[in-house]
């Protein structure tokens, strides 16, 4: 386990006030919040920021952390000394952590320092604990490839779930879960796996597990809902005269007829060849016209002959498709 420099994460000084820490957190949180920032890595960065904020904004935790920080630097190997926290008592601020929805994933470093103090307590946030309350529903993400959506797939996912014993003590448990991904599933959709959430209390049923689908980007395809787009380069003569060419699709290459007189940006639709489903999507090949280089004199003459054949062509005047 490595020591984490929470001050560096938030870009504040060890001497910064709680207000300065709050301001730095808010600014960074807006910038990196995964619902607002779709860049890869934003979600991890946001988690780091949220964790640093959670550690520093609570004066008790900050004092304990500062005490350790005097002896460690960012990235240094770190083991909490036995009994290091005996002088501190964390009152916890359940409900305020970003994990209030049960999907926070603070680092081992945080957990080793503060345990679950920042988390909602107990299996049901305390609200429905005891008796025969059903288990809570859990959420996780699963990343799939485009072809998994075309064909369906079997995936083994790893989950780290807190499990609570009868006295309410939580331990983290690794769970391997084999999941059948139904074909036709789309980016951002959720799969419900009945009974795979948290166990219930007493005789109550367990909760459900919801998996959010993340589609791994796959060049050269672009996915928009159920429709799939692929750019297809053609030569000027293929576009003008028509041709049959080989086009890539997520299901393999197909022969595609380019109609004569096609222009730049023309979309050729392959109906029903997008993502499958109740309403299957379409596949669109978007034509781009590639111009050959003219290095040799023969090639330059060909362009000159081309120009001569189109004396009235003005590319600056709208060349309607």
């Amino acid at each position, binding site marked *: 386990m490595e020591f984490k420099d929470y001050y560096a994460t938030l870009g504040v000084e060890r001497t910064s006030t709680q207000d300065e820490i709050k301001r730095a957190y*808010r600014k960074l*949180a*807006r910038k990196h*919040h*995964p*619902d*607002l920032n779709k860049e890869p890595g934003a979600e991890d960065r*946001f988690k780091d920021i*949220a964790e640093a904020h959670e550690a520093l904004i609570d004066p008790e935790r900050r004092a304990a952390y500062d005490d350790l920080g005097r002896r460690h630097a960012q990235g240094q190997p770190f083991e909490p000394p036995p009994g290091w926290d005996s002088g501190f008592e964390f009152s916890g601020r359940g409900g305020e952590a*970003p994990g*209030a*929805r*049960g999907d926070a994933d603070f680092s081992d470093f945080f957990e080793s320092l503060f345990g679950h103090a920042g988390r909602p307590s107990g299996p049901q946030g305390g609200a429905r604990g005891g008796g025969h309350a*059903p288990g*809570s*529903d859990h*959420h996780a993400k699963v990343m799939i490839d485009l072809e998994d959506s075309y064909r369906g797939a079997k995936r083994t996912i790893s989950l780290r779930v807190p499990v609570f014993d009868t006295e309410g003590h939580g*331990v*983290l*448990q*690794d*769970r*391997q*879960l*084999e*999941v*059948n*991904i*139904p074909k*036709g*599933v*789309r980016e*951002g*959709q*959720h*799969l*419900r*796996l*009945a009974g*795979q959430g948290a166990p219930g209390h007493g005789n109550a049923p367990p*909760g*459900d*597990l*919801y*998996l*959010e689908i993340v589609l791994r980007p796959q060049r050269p395809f*672009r*996915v*928009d*809902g159920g*429709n799939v*787009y692929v*750019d297809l380069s053609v030569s000027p003569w293929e576009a003008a005269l028509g041709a049959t060419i080989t086009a890539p699709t997520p299901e393999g290459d197909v022969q595609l007829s380019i109609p004569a007189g096609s222009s730049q*940006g023309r*979309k050729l639709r392959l109906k029903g060849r997008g993502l499958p*489903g*109740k309403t299957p999507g379409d596949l*669109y090949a*978007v034509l*781009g016209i590639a111009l050959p280089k003219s290095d040799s004199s023969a090639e330059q003459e060909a362009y000159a002959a081309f120009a001569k054949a189109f004396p009235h062509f003005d590319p600056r005047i709208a060349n309607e498709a």
Partner: protein
Amino acid sequence: MTEFHSNAGIGIVVEEEIVFTLDELCRASGTGEAQVLALVGEGVLDPTGTGPQDWVFDGPTLRTVRTALRLADDLELGIRGAAIVLDLLEQVAVLQSRLRRAGIR
């Protein structure tokens, strides 16, 4: 730390095959009724039915609620602020979809 392995069977696509009652929606999104009522009040959610006791929410509602709650909690926006951001995110999604169709990204 222990480890176990199990087969969860086939997943049901929430957006296409599931509708939620108010209680089911609260459980699935890990929130209380008050938050869902506030989202209905802002017009973010539009259940069918005459009142909370027989409201029915369609599958995509789950994602909307979870995004709204993340925004409301993580950025301290409250439900009304989250509602505005959701509208803007919807506009961004429409524009991005146009860009994808046009081949710009």
